């Protein structure tokens, strides 16, 4: 019994990471109807940026976020203004192809720079520390921190979307980009800020991913899939849905792995397909917010 409880608790905590993958993806789709195929590779890029920062400054990976988050946000803004804005338009295919190309470029660029060796960030003891809740049930400090941050990120995004000027601009541009210009909004700039925010979240997700597991230049696409699955399970139009979707995906994967280690990823795909078949709008989709 406690073994199962343990499995589910681990799954929930991993779900926080998936929710962060999903939130950045969902944010971009929501604001500019862009499906960012390079999202997973950008997560891996953030992990490598964190690797360089920790090596160069000797910082703890968690502290390295102080540098990695603004760096990735800047990359996001420039990427949007310099490349993605040019591809956006009536047709949704060009931006899809551009982000696909970007994904290939990122993977090969990282391979050239860092080789195919798998890497990991060392969190200096923090990665093995845990708190014991009951006999047989203990939770890692790092996963707990990661989950808490995920909840904070989603809550913060929700607050930003519904209680700030920027959030209002995001919603207006998403509703009607043409009329939004009449309000004095420069869509290209608003899109740039949305991508900056998305990649700031990617930075947090990338650092936690890199402490949790090994990564190499080819690990991006799998993160993209998990992010997609969490978004679809939770519901496309819902920020809290990404958290619910992430948790569900994490739990299902953990249960699958418990039954047979080979079933971990497969169980996630099955849950994703089941939701798509039974409730295509996602668990929290349909309802506004």
């Amino acid at each position, binding site marked *: 019994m406690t073994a199962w409880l343990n499995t589910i608790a681990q799954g929930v905590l991993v779900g926080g990471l998936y929710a962060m993958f999903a939130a950045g993806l969902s944010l971009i789709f929501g604001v500019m109807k862009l499906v960012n195929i390079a999202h997973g590779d950008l997560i891996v890029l953030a992990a490598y940026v964190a690797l360089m920062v920790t090596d160069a400054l000797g910082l703890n990976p968690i502290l390295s976020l102080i540098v990695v988050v603004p760096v990735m946000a800047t990359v996001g803004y420039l990427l949007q203004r310099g490349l993605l804005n040019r591809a956006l338009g009536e047709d949704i295919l060009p931006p899809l192809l551009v982000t696909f190309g970007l994904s290939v470029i990122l993977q090969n660029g990282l391979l050239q720079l860092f080789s195919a060796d798998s890497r990991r960030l060392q969190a200096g003891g923090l990665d093995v520390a845990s708190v014991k809740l009951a006999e047989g049930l203990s939770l890692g400090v790092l996963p707990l921190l990661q989950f808490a941050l995920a909840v904070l990120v989603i809550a913060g995004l929700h607050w930003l979307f519904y209680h700030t*000027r920027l959030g*209002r*601009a995001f*919603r*207006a541009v*998403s*509703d*009607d980009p*043409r*009329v*939004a*210009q*009449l*309000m*004095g*909004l*420069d*869509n290209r700039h608003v899109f740039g800020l949305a991508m900056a925010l998305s990649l700031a979240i990617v930075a947090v997700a990338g650092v936690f991913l890199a402490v949790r597991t090994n990564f190499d230049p080819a690990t991006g696409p799998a993160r993209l899939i998990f992010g997609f699955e969490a978004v679809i399970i939770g519901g496309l139009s819902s920020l809290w849905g990404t958290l619910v979707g992430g948790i569900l995906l994490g739990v299902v994967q953990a249960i699958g792995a418990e039954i047979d280690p080979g079933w971990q990823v497969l169980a996630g795909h099955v849950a994703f397909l089941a939701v798509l078949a039974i409730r295509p709008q996602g668990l929290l989709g349909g309802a*506004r917010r």
Partner: protein
Amino acid sequence: MPEPPLLGVAALDAHYGDFQALFGVSLTLSRGEVAAVIGANGAGKSTLLNAIAGLIRSRHDAILFEGEPIGDLPANRIVGRGIALVPEGRRLFPSLNVEENLLIGGQIGRPGRWNLGRIYELFPVLAERRRQASTSLSGGQQQMVAIGRALMSNPALLLCDEISLGLAPIIVRDIYATLRQIVGAGTAAVVVEQDIGQALAIADRVYCLQEGRVALEGRAGEVTRADISAAYFGV
């Protein structure tokens, strides 16, 4: 030196791909004046307003505002100069509630007499519904939000594209009574309508568009209904 007109449109052409929608349209408006632009469906009225508002780019000097060329400025920079458009079909932001729709109209922070409180005085029913989704309002109330949203930018020139479209006659009368209050306070306006009655009653000048050309132009009191229907229907 004489003061330049508030708005000067000079030999404005507009194209959608290969299709030409406006042919050498010229229009002049002084501060505080109201121009009515009338014409049949497809005559180019919306195209003209969209060009002035910057949604369609034109030649640098095809549009002068307060003496300055604005023809090639994007819409997001024109609103700061003092031109606001109430678009055809209202086009409120469905994800924003009533108050947010108004606030976003004022977010460029142009100083002037209009603010949230003044808009709610003008349209008290909107104050009661401030937290509602804009999609839950009646057509007339949505039009009030659209007008309020445009006013929030404190324009010197208000462009109204068929604000009577789809509304009951009694609502149209109320909306035009409010518009009269707005222009009475010194805001100039270009009012586009297919239904000429309301537009003529409020206007100082009339322009009749026909297939992208100005077919008739004159002071509102001087053009006759017969002139207008001749220009309108091209007979």
